[in-house]
């Protein structure tokens, strides 16, 4: 049912009439560079990316070739929701990533699904969709090096970047 809705949205958006997506696109592109965790010492600006990384945790993980949220992922995202409610001016870019064991193009699509799983959860928890933007990097930006299960598990991820 939901899937059918998504398809309709896609078709409509192609005609240029999807206003929410347009807004989301128009907000944080490259103009607002990700707030680098530049705090020299322990000082972390509340609501910043550094705050998000240090005090909330900026990522959730997925199983191989899966995009459904795991229970621990949902727990993590509940903290994201609280953070975003506390800092209502924050926008969030949600990156979707994959491990290296897949083909490039399919992984771009899979990363997009993962980013959207995160987004859908946040929206369902009351975060305005217009504050959220998704981007897939497929397997192009691993977080952890290594061709082993431990590294792969760390690389199958959704990452929040506060704008």
């Amino acid at each position: 049912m939901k899937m059918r809705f998504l398809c309709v949205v896609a078709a409509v958006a192609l005609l240029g009439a999807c206003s929410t997506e347009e807004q989301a696109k128009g907000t944080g592109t490259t103009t607002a560079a990700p707030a680098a965790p530049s705090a020299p010492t322990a000082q972390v600006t509340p609501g910043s990316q550094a705050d998000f990384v240090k005090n909330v945790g900026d990522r959730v993980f997925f199983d191989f070739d899966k995009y459904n949220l795991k229970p621990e992922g949902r727990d993590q995202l509940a903290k994201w929701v609280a953070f975003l409610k506390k800092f209502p001016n924050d926008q969030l870019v949600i990156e979707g990533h994959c491990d290296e064991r897949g083909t490039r193009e399919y992984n771009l699509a899979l990363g997009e699904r993962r980013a959207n799983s995160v987004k859908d959860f946040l929206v369902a928890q009351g975060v305005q969709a217009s504050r959220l933007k998704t981007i897939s990097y497929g397997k192009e930006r691993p977080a952890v090096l290594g061709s082993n299960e431990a590294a792969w598990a760390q690389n199958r991820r959704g990452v929040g970047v506060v704008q």
Partner: protein
Amino acid sequence: MRMPALKALSLALLAALLWTLPATAEVVIDINKPNVQPMPIAVTNFAGASGQETQMGRDIAGVVAADLERSGLFKPIEQKAFIQSVESLQVQPRFADWKAVNAQALVQGRVEQTQDGHLRVEFRLWDVFAETQMVGQAYNAAPQGWRRIAHMVADAIYKRITGEEGYFDTQIVYVAESGPQQKRIKRLAIMDQDSENHRFLTDGQELVLTPRFSPNQREITYMSYFRNQPRVYVLHLDSGRRELLGDFPGMTFAPRFSPDGNKVIMSLSQEGNSNIYEMDLRTRHVTRLTNDPFIDTSPSYSPDSARITFNSDRSGTQQLYVMNADGSSQQRISFGDGRYATPVWSPRGDLVAFTKFKSDGFYIGVMRPDGSGERLLTQGFLVEGPTWAPNGRVLAFWRQTPTDSAGRGGTVKLYSIDLTGYNERQIVTPLDGSDPAWSPLIP
């Protein structure tokens, strides 16, 4: 660098056949036989009157011999074994001398620079045992076009002896990679199929992926993360102009030109769901071809444009599908063990090449468009992204090595392999390389 040569090369085939003689029991390579013994061939230096012409004649012979050798079907004989001199050869081949060095075929040629500085290159291919000329051709070009002429000579020899079109007068566009994996710099780069005339097409400022040639090779469609918006672009090689393709509300990726170059087919991702769309480049009209809640990507046209093969996970895992070009009659064609991806229709129409992976690794393989006759050509920790040489006999792909936890390894290199599964060779690139796309024969 390549452009002036391309433009200036007047592909005038002065005399298709300088002269012909009836051939009997001539030398032939049946390239359908796996692991065929390479044919010993004598490629002599092309003769020239001046020092410059002589040097160019040597260079041309070197490129011809290297092309033929790389095909795996020919074994150029070391020149120092030759008995007959280049000068004497201009009068008449002494076939006994060439039999004595076990040459089955003999290549000779001549380079002339005309008054206006242009080149005239002619060559003859001899069947040593039948003592007949198999082919003789002449080419005119600007001086910088000598390298292309050499590839065209190699193509003519390949075609005459194997009966298949050659693929040496071609280019490869690919993604040049450098830097640590977490912050990998990826640039589009283009080169001749023998790795010469290499140049970068993008500066590495943004992530770029999956370049593919238009049929006339003057455009490349690819995906770029310009301004953090992953979208499909077209790069016009002559002007250097980069064009965002369409105004889509989500990520567009996995682009490929139609065989007539008038359309680009690609995936659009919307709210996490990827479907296949086609854009007519003349009218900019967009047609949606798949409409389902699953991942549909990696579309590739059949050479007659009637059908499209693509990748979908609608069955639960990635598999290969074929549909009509209007999106109707979508049918799964891959049913083997494992996941299948990146289907690419052969330019001959007879096969679809793909990436396959299962727990023990990745494979490059081919199957018929109806899914029958699956054959795996090579395997590895990660091999991916086959692309066809224009004659449909050779494939290029990329191979990645495993990375250890210290970050060692993880190299990415281009390779070519014969359709028989033999003659796998690295395609040399200055940096690491992935996502190769082989051009059609240069018009």
